[in-house]
Every structure is written in structure tokens, then in C-alpha cells.
């Protein structure tokens, strides 16, 4: 039998605190998964020497949840399913540890099992009332009659099916902010000041292996309310020059910025940074991408027929217009 190393935390009275509780659990434990809104499961395997016994960990977690404003209940069991059922049947603020999952589930009604209502009705017609009675059925017969989904529920009823905790990555807020003593009234000056912030964001993205897909810039102004600017960065990048260019163009689209006293730049949406194939014999391929980005901007500003690339079609052509071809850089 597996050791009871799965901790389930269930909060019923504070559905708004899901994000905050998840951040709290991520800060406290290494592997945290989400079962439902305000229902979390944590794999405590291997943490005993570092963090203490599972019950102690659970109490610490409950204390943290309480500080966050949520009254949570904790269940510790060998498998995530049993741990959740235990937590749901434990009063808020308390911890309950169950060693034998099958024995714990046996007297409970069939409703606790995650199966379809029709299957529930069919099981009742067969005279089954508790999880224990269902668990006593032969495994092969259940599979033959009801199929794989109910066979999985049958394994859960026996306390056998040990789903692994699918840990989600902790949400990281990539954000940088600055406040300036002297208000900035010039756009150029503001762009220059934003470089420091963009460099910080770029460093944070590089550390996490992300590329920014969306930027949110908030400018605090002396003479008006905050100005919020959203930019989508395509293709996603973490290059400081590209991020700054995107912000610069956004600022240039506004005629009046006012007196800016501070800024907060956040990356609300990221993508895993992908490598970029640069042609072996193409000199300075990275610069070419920057140039194409500028061409795209100018194409948007100037319209068609303004940003072009020339080709010599026939140098010996009699008519000059046949000698060369002009193609749009951005189709």
C-alpha cells in the first residue's frame, strides 16, 4: 500500500481566492496541481526530511490559507482522489489523515465516485448503495459491462488508482516599474527612460525562457489619470530592442502624453521562447528581422507602393520599365 503522501486542500467558502491560494501553495510546496476551483492537490513525496511530516505540512498550509482569508480543510491519503474526498468531509481548519483509502471510501455513498448519472442509476438498480459494495465487484466484469470510464471509477473505489499530481507551473508576474522625481514631458525622453524598464523585462523573460506576446504599459501622469497602453508583439520576442520599438510606436501614435511621473510595464501573456534559424551564409540574419519589422511598420504608415525591394529582371531590356521589377517588402 502506498504511503499517505497526497495532500488535498479544499476551500468552499471563498471561491474568489483561487488565484491567491494557488500562489500560496506554490510558494510552500514543490508539486501543486489544481483539481477544481479552490480544490488543490499536492504531492508530498520526498518532502518529509525537508518540510516535516505530512500532517505538519498540512497544518502550516492551512495557517497560510487562513492568513490569505480562506478557511480550508485538508485531507491526506495515498491517492489524490481519496485525499480530496477526505478533505471534503473534514471540517474547515482541520487535517485528517487516512492510511487505507479503500476502507475509508467503503461506507460512503456512490455519489462520491466521478461517473455518469446513468451509471449511478444502473448501479442502484443492481442493488449497490455504497462505494464498498461497488468496489467488491470483480474488475473484469465491471470493465465488460460498463467500459473503461467506470472501470477507472472502480479502481478509485478500491483506493488503487494513483493519479499522479499534475503540477502546474507557478504563475510568475513579469513586471517592472519606475518612478521619476522630475516629470517627463518629451516623448523621446520617455522612450529613453523606458529602456531601463524594458531591459529589466527582457532579462526576466530570458531567465524564464519566455518571449513576450503582449505588453501592458501604464504611465502615471502628473496632470491626468494613468495612461494604459496595450501592445501585441508579433512575432513574440524577448529582445529589448524589439520590445522598446513596439512601445515607441505605440507612444508615437498618441499626440499628447502629458507629464509622466512613472511607469509600470507588465508582460501578461508569454510564449516559450523559440530558437531562430539564421541562414549559415546569410550575413547578419538577426538584423534582417529587425529591418523587416521596420518595413512592416512603414508599410502600415505609408500604405502600398511605398516600401519596396528592387530586382533587376533584364539588364539588357530596351524599355527601362522592363529592366527592373519592384516588389513589396511586406506583401
Amino acid at each position: 500500500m502506498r504511503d499517505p503522501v497526497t495532500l488535498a486542500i479544499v476551500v468552499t467558502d471563498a471561491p474568489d481566492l483561487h488565484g491567491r491560494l494557488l500562489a500560496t501553495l506554490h510558494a510552500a510546496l514543490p508539486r501543486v496541481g489544481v483539481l477544481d476551483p479552490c480544490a488543490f492537490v499536492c504531492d508530498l513525496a520526498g518532502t518529509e526530511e525537508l518540510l516535516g511530516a505530512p500532517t505538519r505540512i498540512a497544518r502550516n498550509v492551512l495557517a497560510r490559507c487562513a492568513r490569505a482569508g480562506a478557511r480550508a480543510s485538508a485531507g491526506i491519503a495515498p491517492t489524490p482522489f481519496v485525499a480530496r474526498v477526505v478533505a471534503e468531509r473534514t471540517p474547515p481548519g482541520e487535517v485528517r489523515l487516512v492510511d487505507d483509502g479503500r476502507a475509508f471510501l467503503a461506507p460512503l455513498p456512490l455519489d462520491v465516485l466521478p461517473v455518469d448519472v446513468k451509471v449511478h442509476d444502473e448501479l442502484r438498480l443492481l442493488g449497490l448503495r455504497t462505494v464498498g459494495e461497488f468496489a467488491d465487484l470483480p474488475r473484469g466484469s465491471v470493465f465488460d459491462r460498463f467500459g473503461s470510464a467506470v472501470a477507472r471509477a472502480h479502481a478509485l473505489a478500491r483506493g488503487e488508482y494513483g493519479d499522479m499530481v499534475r503540477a502546474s507551473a507557478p504563475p510568475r508576474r513579469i513586471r517592472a516599474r519606475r518612478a521619476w522625481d522630475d516629470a517627463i514631458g518629451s516623448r523621446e525622453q520617455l522612450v529613453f527612460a523606458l529602456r531601463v524598464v524594458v531591459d529589466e523585462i527582457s532579462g526576466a523573460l530570458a531567465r524564464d525562457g519566455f518571449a513576450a506576446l503582449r505588453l501592458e504599459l501604464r504611465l502615471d501622469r502628473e496632470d491626468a489619470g494613468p495612461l494604459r497602453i496595450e501592445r501585441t508583439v508579433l512575432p513574440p520576442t524577448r529582445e529589448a530592442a524589439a520590445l522598446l520599438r513596439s512601445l515607441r510606436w505605440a507612444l508615437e501614435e498618441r499626440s499628447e502624453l502629458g507629464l509622466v511621473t512613472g511607469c509600470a510595464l507588465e508582460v501578461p501573456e508569454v510564449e516559450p521562447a523559440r530558437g531562430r534559424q539564421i541562414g549559415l551564409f546569410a550575413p547578419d540574419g538577426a538584423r534582417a528581422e529587425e529591418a523587416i519589422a521596420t518595413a512592416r511598420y512603414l508599410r502600415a504608415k505609408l500604405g502600398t507602393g511605398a516600401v519596396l525591394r528592387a530586382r533587376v529582371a533584364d539588364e539588357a531590356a530596351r524599355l527601362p520599365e522592363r529592366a527592373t521589377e519592384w516588389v513589396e517588402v511586406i506583401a
Partner: protein
Amino acid sequence: MAENALAGAIARIEGRFGVHALARGSTSERHRSELVIATKSSLDDVIGGGLIAGEPIAFIGPPSVGKLQLALRATASAQAQGGMAAWIDPTSSFDPIAAQRASVDLERLIVVRARGTHLALATAAALRSEGFRLVVVDVGDRAFGGTNVDDIAPALSAVRGSPAALLVVAGEPGRRVAIPTFLFERVAWERRFDRTVGWSFAVGRAHASDRALFCVTSLEGTLADLGTRPDLAQVAV
């Protein structure tokens, strides 16, 4: 706290001394080989080693004297050093065949046909991009439908700190903008068998004695470098 103080100090210096009074270390400490676009001709001796990233320069002279020939040569040099070039062309007069003959890689040259207020916008956007080594603005000659050098004045603030050099080609200097200017003067016509087959021209600062001398021969269609001469001011025609 230290970063806040630094940002505040930067903002104050910028407010008092101008937008580009400070340059980032990565910009100011770029290796000189990255900054200088050497044309490998006697023009380099006259303009101080080559075109320099983050600095503007103007070629001024009468039509058909050789300004664009040298501008194309500079473009080819910039591309040879591994970069792209932007050619701002308000008069739509860019000649791809001449460019190809001057060894310009047309695949790595973006031609922008921008006029009026868009001229400064396109110039500034190209200078602010990290993608170009050289930005050439051929404003043309006013007698032939060209614009005024002064039209690019709003973009000049973007030059400093830019990874690209700015080369302005024009018929006459501007009145409002102060750009280091190199004058092109025709020195002599080259004649063979009683026919004009080319001309030579000199490039130099207005009041400097050293001039770079070039010869354009229509027979070969090439630009010959005749070296630097100190006494050309007296023989110019």
C-alpha cells in the same frame, strides 16, 4: 533604490541637456569596426575614416556629378560588413541597375518612397531600427522635383545612438539643419576622340584643401578612384 536614483538622474540630464545627451554603454562602447562603414576609397581620407554609425553626413552637389555613385558605393560597403541598408527615395528615382553595378545587394536594400512629412517619419523609423547599417536619404535636386534637406530635420534627433549612419544626398544644403557637409564639384570632362566619355569630380569639405578625386567613365560605367589631392580647389571648373 539605486536603480530609481539612476533613472531619475538620467531623466534630469536628458531634460537639461537634450534627448540623446546620454548613450547606453552598449551603444557607446560598440567596437569601432562596427561603427565605421569604410568605403575603401580616398573618400574615407576626406570624411575621417568612413561613415560612422550614429552620425549624419551630407553629399551636396549639382546633378549628375557623382553623388549617388559614391552613395551606392557606401551602401555596398555597409552591406559587405554584414548589414542591411535603407534607401529613402522621395523622388522615386532610385536606379536598381546602377545599384547592382555598384555591387549593392538589392535583396538587402529596402527602398522607401516617402514624401512630405512621411520623409522624416521614414528616416527616423529606419534610424531607430536595429536592422540597418546605413540609411541613405536621396532628397534629389529641387530643380528636378526633389525636396528640401530641411524636411528631414525632425528625424535628425534619431541619429545619435542609432546603429546606422545617415547619408543625405541633395542638390543644395539645408537652411535649418546642420549636417557635416561634403561638396561635390565637377573638375574636368574627359574626352576621347573628340567625344565626352566621362568626367572627374572632387569631394571635400567647403573650406578644406584636401579633396578626393574620382573619375566616372561612361565607356566602362565605373567609378575610378584617383586619390586625394590638396590643390583641386584651384583647378575646379
